[in-house]
């Protein structure tokens, strides 16, 4: 009989704990330059933990479907100036194109059938053109292009202009210049301005003062940035793009820093937190 009492007591305690967790609510007051709202972007789509690889249509469609404002994407160019989505320096390793080097060494037609090494389905490399043409309500979405420059050509002016030219063409084709952030170093963003790009530059690796002095749109930083630095950037009129939120705790840490735009690997909990999760969408 005593053991029955113990089981019952444990059960009731468990139920009490469950109900108390269900009713817990947190309120956050955001203060930033973005209408006091954090723009929520996926990281490469649904993030590193999703079943499909980052930077693929299979990972991008769901993050938009659940309510995110858009997503960060890793972009590179091919030899024939096609802007593609791919993270790594070489195709070898991540794709079935064993021995292939940088995407820049190939024309698009040569690598478009380089499928990712995944256990399920054949997931190809996508061009930005393919992704933009596949998304409904594209002009209501935002994308942050993390420009993965070929390390051997990173400081080559011709290559940089070729890269920026590809971004400019695709943005103009889809009327997306106002909805695309370009993340890169200061020199790259200044070249972009020089070429007439009206995308929003997010500088990486420069100080707030340098970004401000060069009229850059915003700075890119991580969730480990001191809050004073975020406040200082805002005081200078710079928007703040934040990344490194890889967990629910990371999301909450980022929220506390009041960024304007947040790239997250855990989009579902943060969208739920802000009542921006669309329950009508069935995640594949």
């Amino acid at each position: 009989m005593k053991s029955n009492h113990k089981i019952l007591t444990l059960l009731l305690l468990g139920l009490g704990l469950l109900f108390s967790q269900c009713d817990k609510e947190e309120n956050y007051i955001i203060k930033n330059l973005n209408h006091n709202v954090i723009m929520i972007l996926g990281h490469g789509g649904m993030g590193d933990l999703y079943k499909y690889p980052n930077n693929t249509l299979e990972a991008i469609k769901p993050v938009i479907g659940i309510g995110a404002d858009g997503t960060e994407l890793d972009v590179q160019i091919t030899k024939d100036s096609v802007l593609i989505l791919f993270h790594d320096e070489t195709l070898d390793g991540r794709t079935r194109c064993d021995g292939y080097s940088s995407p820049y060494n190939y024309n698009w037609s040569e690598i478009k059938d380089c499928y990712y090494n995944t256990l399920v389905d054949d997931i190809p490399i996508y061009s930005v053109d393919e992704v933009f043409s596949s998304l409904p309500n594209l002009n209501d979405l935002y994308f942050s292009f993390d420009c993965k420059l070929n390390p051997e050509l990173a400081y080559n002016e011709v290559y940089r202009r070729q890269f920026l030219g590809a971004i400019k063409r695709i943005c103009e084709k889809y009327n997306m210049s106002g909805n695309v952030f370009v993340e890169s170093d200061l020199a790259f963003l200044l070249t972009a301005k020089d070429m007439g790009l009206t995308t929003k530059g997010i500088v990486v690796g420069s100080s707030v003062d340098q970004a401000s002095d060069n009229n850059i749109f915003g700075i890119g930083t991580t969730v480990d940035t001191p809050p004073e630095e975020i406040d200082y950037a805002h005081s200078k009129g710079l928007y703040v793009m934040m990344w490194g939120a890889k967990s629910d705790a990371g999301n909450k840490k980022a929220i506390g820093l009041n960024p304007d735009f947040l790239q997250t690997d855990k989009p579902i909990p943060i969208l739920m937190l802000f009542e921006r999760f669309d329950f009508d969408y069935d995640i594949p």
Partner: protein
Amino acid sequence: MITAQDTGEQQSNFRNNIIKLNAIPIAQAINGHNQKWLGVEYERFIKHNLSVGALVDFGLFEDYTFIKYHDYFDENEGFSYTRKDVVTRGYHFIPSVKFYFLSTKQKKGQGFYISGCLDFNQYFKKSEIYFSQTNSFAYENSSTTRLSAGATLGGQFVAFTRLVIDLNISIYGKLFSVSRGQNNSEIPPLNATWVFNDNKGWSTVNLMIGYAFGGGKKK
């Protein structure tokens, strides 16, 4: 105090009826929906290891707000938002036949069981959409009626001869559904912990607490 066991007599608690409450929000904890529904199951034993029953889950299965912001940089129509408030109410009626393939002799209804069941389910969904740009509202109503068949694996524990705790998992397959409104899109089974194959199948997990009554002790 002398008990039946003390005298060496074999005792069996023949409580023929169990009424159970299904009030633990397991699905909510997994699918994230804000739910306030209650389930009541009546189970009647027709043999020591065979029972029939019916579970009714009813109430609020979905209550959420979805906010979408537009034009953050005031480059087109200006910064605005749409806010959709969604409420879905409904019920599940689940008759079942349970076979206790592993049960204790001392307590009827204690053991592990499998059951075959049907789930007749209706949901009624109401959406109110507010457009801040035009300060206007739109309203949408939709419904889904569905019949499915399933199988359950469960375990039931009887404490103090009358208190019953039932934990079970069920897998359902859809037989048919009819949906109206909102492009006739089907409202998925909201009591499910896992839905697969475009609402063609799903699983539920229930933890119920019950009270056994009727019958009596039989030596």
